[in-house]
């Protein structure tokens, strides 16, 4: 077929999808006040999305921090500025690596869990049953899971940053013998409160994006085994693309 026609069609499809997701988000926001009354449900979802992701986040944070320490040290050594390892690692983590990597890991672990759980509920008619019992599934099932993800994400990113800095410190100070005093003092001098807030804003927005995509894919999954599987894959792919795209937008907006 004509490649331009294909491109045009994909563009239209993407716009339609964007519109669908936005309208879905609106539905979620409108149902949130009622859903907030289900406090216990939200707590459980924060647990599912957040606490259960702790292991992978902390492990990844540690390794990323350590690699950052290694690479950073090597690079800075060329300019004789190894003492700047602290500030380099901290800024890289807080502003960029932490929000992005946490979001990607979140999409892979918590996002897929959400999408498949909701998709399965769709496939086994649980959502229809709720509708039939005059209970809004959006309010009872979807919004608590959405809020759970949104709350968990910035917290996970903060934990990632802290563990990452520790990892960098482990490699830099313990192994490479960068002066511990310089490591921390340069970091303190070089990292601004603004950097931390920028990172937090990023991870909060990533949290909204990833959670939204996950619950959306689950809610509109085709009610078959294959459909649920497809919803899960789409969650990861869409989340990843969205996160990286938003990252560029936000980074350039902050500059």
């Amino acid at each position, binding site marked *: 077929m004509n490649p331009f026609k294909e491109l045009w069609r994909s563009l239209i499809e993407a716009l339609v999808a964007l519109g669908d997701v936005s309208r879905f988000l609106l539905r979620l926001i409108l149902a949130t006040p009622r859903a907030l009354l289900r406090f216990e449900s939200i707590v459980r979802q924060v647990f599912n999305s957040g606490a259960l992701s702790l292991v992978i986040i902390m492990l990844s944070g540690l390794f990323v921090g350590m690699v950052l320490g290694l690479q950073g040290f090597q690079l800075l050594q060329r300019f004789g500025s190894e003492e700047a390892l602290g500030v380099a690692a901290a800024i890289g983590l807080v502003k960029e690596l932490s929000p992005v990597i946490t979001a990607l890991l979140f999409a892979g672990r918590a996002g897929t869990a959400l999408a498949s759980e909701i998709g*399965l*509920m769709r496939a*086994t*008619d*649980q959502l*229809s*049953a*709720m*509708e*039939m*019992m*005059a*209970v809004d599934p959006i309010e*009872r099932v979807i919004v608590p899971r959405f809020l759970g993800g949104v709350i968990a994400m910035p917290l996970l990113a903060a934990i990632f940053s802290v563990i990452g800095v520790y990892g960098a410190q482990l490699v830099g100070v313990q192994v490479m013998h960068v002066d511990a005093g310089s490591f921390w003092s340069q970091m303190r001098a070089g990292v601004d409160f603004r950097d931390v807030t920028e990172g937090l804003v990023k991870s909060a927005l990533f949290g909204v994006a990833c959670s939204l995509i996950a619950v959306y894919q689950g809610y509109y999954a085709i009610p078959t085994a294959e459909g649920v599987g497809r919803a899960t894959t789409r969650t990861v792919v869409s989340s990843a693309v969205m996160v990286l795209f938003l990252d560029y937008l936000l980074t350039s907006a902050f500059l």
Partner: protein
Amino acid sequence: MNSTAAIVEIRDLHYAINGRAVFDGLDVDIAPGRVTAIMGPSGTGKTTLLRLITGQLREYTGKLIVAGQDMSALRRAGLYALRRRMGMLFQNGALLTDLNVFENVAFPLREHTDLPERLIRQLVLTKLQAVGLRGAAELMPAELSGGMGRRVALARAIVMDPEILIYDEPFVGLDPISLGVILRLIRRLNDVLGLTSIVVSHDVHEISSVADAVYLLSGGKVAARGAPRDLQASSSEVVRQFIGGLPDGPVPFHFPAPDYFGELLARGEDH
């Protein structure tokens, strides 16, 4: 059959999915207090009809009155209010997998009423007793067999004392014993609780044993209606094929295809 006002009144219903007409002028009356069975070959839209009655599908033309409410005029609030007067048993039970049996049955009570915990407990246990599963109250849905799951779903469907109970293919995949249990429950609950029961099924002989009235759907219209024994005695081809389980008849055996001989030959020639 129309001596008292029908609790569900359908006149000249037209409904299409993706351009394909599912219902083409359907007329159905569901009498109150009776067990009405809706039967038909696969794909005639039995489940679609249920969805229309419960308001899950909206874009139809024709007259559809349920419990005195015109379905086309209902907004969400009215729809939810109507649904609280109905109970529905889904094909696979559709129990909420994150709650145990007790909580599943208690779900409508917790959501829609402010009843104290003790009262909820009593109501739930009573309904579970009615379906014979009071002892299973602590189990999770995953631990139940198909038949048990369906009985729990039935208990859940009656916990709010509905006026109408709807069963979507309740016998699918059940062993003879479980099937017999559900059959008896349908009849007993209907009579004891004074419900109106609508059962969608294609298990002709099973459902005929408990139904008061039967509708046979075919080709988007009602092909036959009446008491079960009337259908047995019917001379209509559609009815005969369905009841007799005949492979070919008004519902053809062969999916539409081009000429057989022609296709075989063609495959041999061009390559």
